[in-house]
């Protein structure tokens, strides 16, 4: 039927390497999500409660992250910073780029989450004698977390998908590794087909874990 012979053997032989690279993908995505959540929380709070340069910084960060392509942001951290003498390794570039992007998107989700928690909750907590830190960490943030749990899961999936851009800046995560093997063996279609399956499995795993976690976390 086809004028093309499929050769799956080289792909199968390097499958362990690909799976190893898949773990790198997961590692980078998870790390950037952790950084992104922390930064996003700060950005959301700065955008809502601060005035002056801090608010301005938060708004600029969020709008830049949301209104330019992720690939552009990666190029910026790679070539842009390289031009002024800051040379990052591919790993740091992808980590910085993904964290920057995730922080921007998550900040808006957090802002929505904070707005969904009534003001009176914070006031009541303060009336009960909690200080601001306690009120936030024990009363407000757990409620916000419930609202933003689903968006965070989505963002985690996006982080995994976005980390595939590492291929273009020479980082050997799943896509980069695939590109490397594909250009060595010229079995481009076969390699990328297997990689697509691996990505699908990773994404489904994340969604399944998130669902299990949700069952455990939101029992009450």
């Amino acid at each position, binding site marked *: 039927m*086809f*004028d*093309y012979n499929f050769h799956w053997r080289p792909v199968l032989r390097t499958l362990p390497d690909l799976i190893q690279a898949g773990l790198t993908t997961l590692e980078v995505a998870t790390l950037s999500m952790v950084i992104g959540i922390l930064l996003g929380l700060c950005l959301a709070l700065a955008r809502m409660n601060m005035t002056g340069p801090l608010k301005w910084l938060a708004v600029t960060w969020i*709008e*830049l992250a*949301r*209104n*330019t*392509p*992720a*690939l*552009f942001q990666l*190029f*910026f951290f790679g*070539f*842009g910073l*390289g*031009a*002024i003498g800051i040379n990052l390794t591919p790993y740091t570039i992808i980590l910085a780029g993904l964290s920057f992007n995730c922080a921007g998107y998550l900040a808006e989700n957090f802002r929505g989450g904070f707005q969904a928690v009534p003001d009176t909750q914070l006031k009541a907590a303060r009336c009960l004698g909690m200080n601001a830190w306690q009120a936030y960490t024990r009363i407000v943030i757990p409620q916000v977390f419930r609202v933003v749990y689903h968006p965070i899961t989505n963002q985690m*999936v996006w982080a995994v*998908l*976005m980390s*595939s*851009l590492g*291929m*273009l800046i020479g980082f050997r995560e799943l*896509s980069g590794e*695939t590109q490397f093997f594909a250009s060595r063996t010229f079995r*481009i*279609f076969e390699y*990328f*087909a297997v*990689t*697509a399956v691996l*990505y*699908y499995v990773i*994404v*489904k795993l994340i969604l399944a874990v998130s669902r299990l976690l949700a069952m455990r976390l939101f029992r009450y």
Partner: protein
Amino acid sequence: MQDSISFFTGFGINDLLFLGEAALKTLWISALSIAIGTLLGTFFGWLLHEGKLVASFTIAPILDVFRSVPLIIQLVLFYNFAPIIGLNFDPFASGVVILTFYTAALVASVARGGIEAVPASMRRASRSLGISYWQDLFYVVLPIGGRAVFPAWIGVVLGVMKDSALVSVLGYVELLKASQVLITRTQEPLLILAIAGAFYFALSYPISRYANKFEQRWSK
């Protein structure tokens, strides 16, 4: 006597025009795929709503693949798969095909949400008034459901526009690829990336602001 030839020339007004032209290409490829993808996606959304069990075993998993595999992998895969089945697509055509299906997959869930946002009682009421099924769909469901999911649709549009940057992997010279070409020639990454970023921002930010305004007006 000049003993060294300069390979790198400065950034001039022509280059700005080159970037502007590339921005138009970005706009063109995204507008085309968003237009076709939205129509296709709305159709899929309708199928998902109507053929509940059948659709959830046939087209739902296929659409899911487009959402769970990185766009860059999809593009490389399709670009290398098309010649195997005897289609000779240039980078632009391959980009449009994949971006269209990608948009359709995202729009399908949005459209389904839109249809489900219309209360069943309202649809029954319109049918009781003697309106046919198709009239009900176009004159009742489309205006009401469309309004409910308009912000979500804008989100998809902006996402696809930014993701169209990835078509550059296939060699289509859109905005980001054009900036890469210029960087190679002028060796001024920071300036050119800033300009390319400004172009993206100028394309995306007004739309997202407009969508926000729209959402606020409707939530009142």
